[in-house]
């Protein structure tokens, strides 16, 4: 997978990777991109092109994660980005899966009890995610921002968080189980086409949350730790 650079036409990049559309939307960029370069569009939207490109590139390439560079961005940029992803989960992705799932269940045989269990499963996932988002907005993000405001004149060293002993994120684990269970254990009569739509929407959210979590655990948390101990 190749990286995106400032001189490239954003429309060409998005044509190649339509999954970027929600990501550019988070930065306030809408379709109707014409043939403008990434750099031009960033200037017009008053975005830091370096930050924009790093977010796009880490989203597209799961192997690409320049920790040093990411930790050098201002805390408020990272918090803003994570806030936007939370909004997107809350306003688009969760309702989207829910809509597909309800339609899928209503179009399948009513006595198929496995589908009801899947619905219950989805709601417990939704609950967890919404709880985390609420906590982010009320407690954690304001805390990160106030710390960085207090320490704005101090340059902090880069921190590397050890991968060892890291516990799995419960949100990711729930999503992975939800997908895996549908693929491995679905039984009875059901609508194949709608089932696929549900799995695709789960998969899209899963990928997005993976990137969100990498930034959360490997960038923002170490920065905050560094600020707390400076």
């Amino acid at each position, binding site marked *: 997978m190749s990286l995106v650079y400032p001189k490239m036409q954003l429309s060409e990049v998005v044509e190649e990777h339509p999954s970027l559309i929600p990501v550019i939307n988070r930065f306030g960029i809408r379709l109707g991109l014409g043939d403008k370069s990434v750099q031009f569009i960033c200037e017009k939207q008053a975005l830091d092109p370096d930050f924009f490109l790093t977010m796009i590139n880490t989203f597209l390439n799961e192997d690409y994660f320049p920790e040093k560079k990411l930790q050098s961005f201002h805390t408020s940029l990272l918090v803003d980005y994570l806030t936007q992803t939370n909004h997107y989960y809350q306003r688009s992705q969760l309702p989207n899966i829910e809509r597909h799932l309800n339609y899928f269940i209503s179009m399948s045989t009513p006595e198929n*009890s*496995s589908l*009801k*269990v*899947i619905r*219950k499963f989805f709601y417990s996932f939704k609950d967890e995610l919404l709880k985390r988002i609420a906590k982010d907005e009320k407690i954690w993000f304001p805390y990160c921002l106030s710390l960085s405001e207090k320490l704005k004149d101090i340059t902090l060293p880069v921190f590397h968080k050890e991968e060892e002993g890291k516990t799995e994120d419960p949100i990711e684990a*729930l999503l992975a*189980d939800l997908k*895996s*269970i549908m693929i491995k254990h679905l039984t009875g009569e059901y609508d194949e086409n709608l089932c696929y739509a549900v799995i695709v929407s789960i998969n899209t959210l899963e990928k997005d949350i993976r990137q969100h979590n990498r930034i959360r655990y490997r960038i923002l948390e170490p920065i905050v730790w560094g600020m707390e101990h400076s």
Partner: protein
Amino acid sequence: MTHRYKNIAIILSDTLQRIGLRCLLLDYFSPIEITAFPGFDDFCKVEEDSFDFYFTQPDIFICNADYFLPKRNKTILLLNDSSSALPPPGQGFHSLPLKASQEVILEQLQHLFASTINHTPNEGNRELSSREIDVLQLIVKGITNKEIADKLNISLNTVLTHRKNITSKLGIKTVPGLTFYAIMNGLISGDEIEL
């Protein structure tokens, strides 16, 4: 994880070779775990004896023959050309021709992995024991580990071990996931939990 992934060590001094081999293996043979080292010294620092395969070059192999000879079934030498004299073929080790086409290299790797690793997870091992089923039935009712221990008259540690084994046998990590499994397999009826 229900089964362990292939665990591979790459010990090559040439950076591009290391990256190239790593990409090829990840692209075509995932899921796979790869650790790459520029030299044998770096490799020794983390050596845990648990690699399934070692990819290395002839000079590193020769200099550390004591290490590699007992592992020759698991060692793959990257050779510049097939007529290379070092070390002699036919002694149980594998080789990969550096200058062959990608197609040939992939075929050889496929052959190597197919002949030595059993890809299918061990089905026989994945049945839950009756005690594990007892624990599972209680987990999905939302009972805490401590209460499960009291109810079944076992220690908290035993409960944790059972939980770990259930997760690894079923490949399901979360309580809602386990609930689904329990209902679909008739281990608990839908009426016992709220749908």
